[in-house]
């Protein structure tokens, strides 16, 4: 169950002197498994200092500072949410203004057609609605979800990444990636296990 794709269950290099005949292109990267969030955070930090750039960490809950260590700083979300909220406000007020003043003017007790104070509640609600939808859809879309398959799902015991294990993956596209050296590097970080991940 843990290893649905039958990848390297031995947890160590099959044989350091005779690596299996595979091309780098077949490999998504190397993944190291850790037992605590502290170990993972430290490992990500050392990998960053060691010159690795294309990596990602996987954990069962958010860990403060981890995304910065794997080289991610700006989510881009606040700007999207602000823009959507502004569009919501403008369209909310615009709709009411157009309906009440232009398309269907109605004299209610002599009040001005553009009786803006009574348009505030709907304007406010639509601001929140647009902004909230943008926050959620933006988060899902920027994260590239839904993504039914991803190579790391094939890693041994990766199912535990949603329970109690912490993973650091260094991708093969990294300029510094080398199957032997990177593996040795990850092992030196105190990983519980290091395994190769197929594309």
């Amino acid at each position: 169950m843990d290893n649905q794709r039958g990848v390297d269950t031995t947890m160590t290099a099959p044989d350091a002197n005779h690596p299996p005949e595979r091309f780098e292109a077949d490999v998504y990267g190397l993944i190291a498994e850790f037992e605590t969030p502290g170990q993972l955070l430290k490992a990500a930090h050392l990998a960053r200092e060691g010159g690795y750039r294309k990596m990602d960490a996987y954990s069962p809950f958010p860990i403060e500072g981890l995304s910065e260590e794997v080289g991610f700083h700006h989510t881009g979300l606040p700007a999207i949410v602000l823009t959507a909220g502004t569009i919501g406000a403008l369209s909310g007020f615009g709709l009411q203004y157009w309906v009440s003043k232009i398309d269907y003017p109605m004299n209610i007790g002599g009040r001005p057609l553009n009786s803006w104070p009574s348009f505030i509640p709907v304007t406010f609600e639509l601001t929140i609605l647009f902004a909230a939808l943008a926050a959620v859809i933006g988060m899902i879309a920027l994260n590239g979800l839904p993504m039914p398959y991803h190579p790391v799902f094939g890693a041994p015991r990766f199912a535990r990444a949603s329970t109690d294990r912490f993973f650091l993956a260094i991708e093969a596209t990294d300029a510094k990636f080398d199957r032997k050296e990177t593996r040795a590097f990850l092992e030196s970080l105190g990983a519980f296990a290091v395994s190769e991940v197929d594309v």
Partner: protein
Amino acid sequence: MATDDQPRRADGKSNEYKHPDPVLEGAHDYASVTDKISGIVLTRYTPRSWFLAFGVGFLLLMVFLAAVTYLLFVGTGIWGINVPVAWGFAIINFVWWIGIGHAGTLISAILLLMRQQWRTSINRFAEAMTLFAVACAGLFPVLHMGRPWLAYWLLPYPNVMGLWPQFRSPLVWDVFAVSTYGTVSFLFWFVGLIPDFATMRDKAAHPTLRTIYGLLAMGWRGSAVHWHRYETAYLLLAGLATPLVVSVHTVVSFDFAVSVVPGWHTTVFPPYFVAGAIYSGFAMVLTLVIPIRAIYGLEQMITARHLGNMAKVMLATGLIVGYGYLMEIFMSWYGANSYEQYVTSNRMFGPYAPVFWSLILCNILTPQLLWFRKIRDNVAVLFVIAVVVNIGMWLERYVIVVTSLHRDYLPSSWGMYGGTIWDYATFAGTIGLFLSLLYLFIRVLPMISIFEVRQLISTRRKAE
């Protein structure tokens, strides 16, 4: 428990105030909380009490089906509404249900912004409660319309009649406020569930279950980059939901306050409606959580701290509501408007006086027991108080709606109002809908946010 934490202050590691009641009891680790919470769902075993509670809910839901079917055949004439009191049970129940929902948003959004750790074990459950309460609330205005199949006329859309909604009317604001509230509550709940869907996908043994949870998880893999965006989005949602929840009950109170009916036309309504909403919502969370925690043995996650804090919030908001009642009475005297004065004295000593005094007993007097720690710690008594407050808040809306309408300016159009059997059947029916949805939810989805409890363990370990 407290003694464990005390000696550590000497080595300067933790100067923070330690609460004597922890938010998580027992020697739990990441795997044990995951197994405990997901195990409730991922098992063929269903406790007998679940069947009992769901059975009651489902039975009442069938009552709802009958009541609504008859309503659609005959029309709103089957209800007790009449000419002075055209707003009867439908509006009372609408306000009651929507108020109940507010505690969920308060727990999930406002307590998140205030970094209250005790929200963690109850937020998922409270959010689900919000969602189902809003669903029940939304049914009433629609059924009250007489021709519910034309409910979409409430929305602004270009139509062959060339008509638009009247945007100066609080009833139209209600449409926007409630539908936005429902949508945002759903988003909040769903976003909170995504990482837990992934856990369920990885934990489920049955391939069908794995597929269903897998589809819902959308391929969530716990990437650090994803978590970062996730937390940003969650925080933004909390920041948006906080003013939203205040606006929703404010708009609901505008339905009354914007009119010129004596007893309704008052500026104290928005704040005291919001406080009342939170008050009734916390009462409902306690009413639901106390039995469920016992059924599933969740005492280590929903601890005395959670129950005690909710009792305190109830006491505080109950006092605000009491202040609201007091100000209403004071202003009707101080305002020197004879109609307002009449409504106040009619409420207290008129034909509906028993309802008014029951409301004072349920909402103002009973909760004063919560000042005592012994009572807050007694789960059974707390449960009874919560139920009493729920009833009291329903009576409050009854008093507001009925006493104000039944005698206003023209004595020639005075009248009396009482709900018919169909009014009660519809109300009981929505309780059935609510219970059915809630018990289905706790059977198929993790009712406690698993990843947030794991995070809590991690913070606790760091502090040690």
